[in-house]
C-alpha cells in the first residue's frame, strides 16, 4: 500500500497531508514566537520605570521600514511563483522564486548592517534587557529567513526536476514553502512595530 493523500485531497478533511502538516508546523511556530513575545511583555512591564528605552532611540526606523517593504514584496513574489506553476509557466516561476530568494538576501544584508552598527557602538545583547530581547527575537527570525532561503533555493535549482516528473506534487510543495514564507513575513509584521515603534 502506498501512503494515500500525499498529493490528492482526502474527501472528508478537504486537505492533503503536506498542507495539514505545514499548517501544524506553523501553529507550533506561532507558539514559539509567542513565547518570546510574552517574554518581551513581561520584561517590559516588569522593568523599572524609565529604564526601558523607546525602540526609536536605539534602532533605525528607516532601515526597518525598508526591510518591511522588502519582505512584503518577497511574499508577493512567492505567491506569484506558486500561481505561475498553477498556470504551467516554469519560466515565470523561476523569475518569481528567484526574486523571492533575492529579496530575502537583501533583507539579511540590511539586518547585518543593523547588527554591525549596534556592535560597533558596543550595543551588545548583554547591555540591556531590551537589546537582549531585540537581538534574540530578530536573530531567531533571521534564522527562519535563512531556512526559507535554503528551502526556496533548493526548489529553484536542484529540486526543480520534480516539475517534470510530478508537477502537481511539486506545485503542492511550493505552496507549502510559500505558507512557511508568508508566516515568516507575518512574524515580521508584528516584530517591526513592537520592537522599533513602541
Amino acid at each position: 500500500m502506498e501512503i494515500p493523500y500525499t498529493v490528492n485531497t482526502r474527501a472528508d478533511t478537504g486537505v492533503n497531508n503536506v498542507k495539514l502538516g505545514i499548517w501544524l508546523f506553523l501553529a507550533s511556530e506561532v507558539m514559539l514566537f509567542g513565547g518570546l513575545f510574552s517574554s518581551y511583555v513581561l520584561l517590559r512591564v516588569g522593568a523599572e520605570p524609565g529604564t526601558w528605552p523607546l525602540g526609536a532611540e536605539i534602532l533605525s526606523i528607516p532601515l526597518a521600514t525598508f526591510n518591511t517593504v522588502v519582505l512584503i514584496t518577497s511574499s508577493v513574489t512567492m505567491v506569484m511563483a506558486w500561481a505561475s506553476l498553477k498556470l504551467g509557466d516554469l519560466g515565470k516561476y523561476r523569475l518569481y522564486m528567484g526574486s523571492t530568494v533575492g529579496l530575502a538576501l537583501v533583507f539579511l544584508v540590511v539586518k547585518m548592517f543593523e547588527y554591525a552598527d549596534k556592535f560597533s557602538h558596543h550595543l551588545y545583547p548583554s547591555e540591556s534587557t531590551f537589546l537582549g530581547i531585540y537581538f534574540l527575537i530578530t536573530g531567531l527570525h533571521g534564522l527562519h529567513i535563512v531556512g526559507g532561503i535554503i528551502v526556496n533555493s533548493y526548489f529553484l535549482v536542484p529540486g526543480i526536476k520534480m516539475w517534470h516528473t510530478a508537477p502537481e506534487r511539486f506545485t503542492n510543495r511550493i505552496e507549502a514553502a510559500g505558507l512557511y514564507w508568508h508566516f515568516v513575513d507575518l512574524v515580521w509584521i508584528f516584530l517591526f512595530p513592537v520592537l522599533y515603534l513602541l
Partner: protein
Amino acid sequence: MSVDSAEDIKKHVKVYIMVFVALMVLTVVTVGVAYLTLTVPVAITVALIIATIKSSLVANYFMHLAAEKSAIYWTLLVTAACFLVLMFVPLFAVLDSIGR
C-alpha cells in the same frame, strides 16, 4: 486546493496585487502613526490593530486561509487561544502579585 482553472488563478493574481498595495499603504500608516505623540497604551493598541489587519490580509489571501477547510481553521483557532493565554495570563499573574 480545489481545481483552479487559469481564469481563477488570474483572478487570484489581481487580488494579490491589490493586497500588496494595501500592505504598502498600511506600512506607511504604521510608521506615520509612530510619529504622532500618543500615550503608550493607545500607541500599543493602534500598532497591534494595524499589524493584525496586515497579518489578516497575508493570511487570508497569500496563505489562502479564506478558502481553507475546517481542519485548518480549528487548528488555528486552538493555537490562537493558546497564544492569547500565553500572552495575557502571565501578565495578569505579574500584575496581581503581592506587594504591587
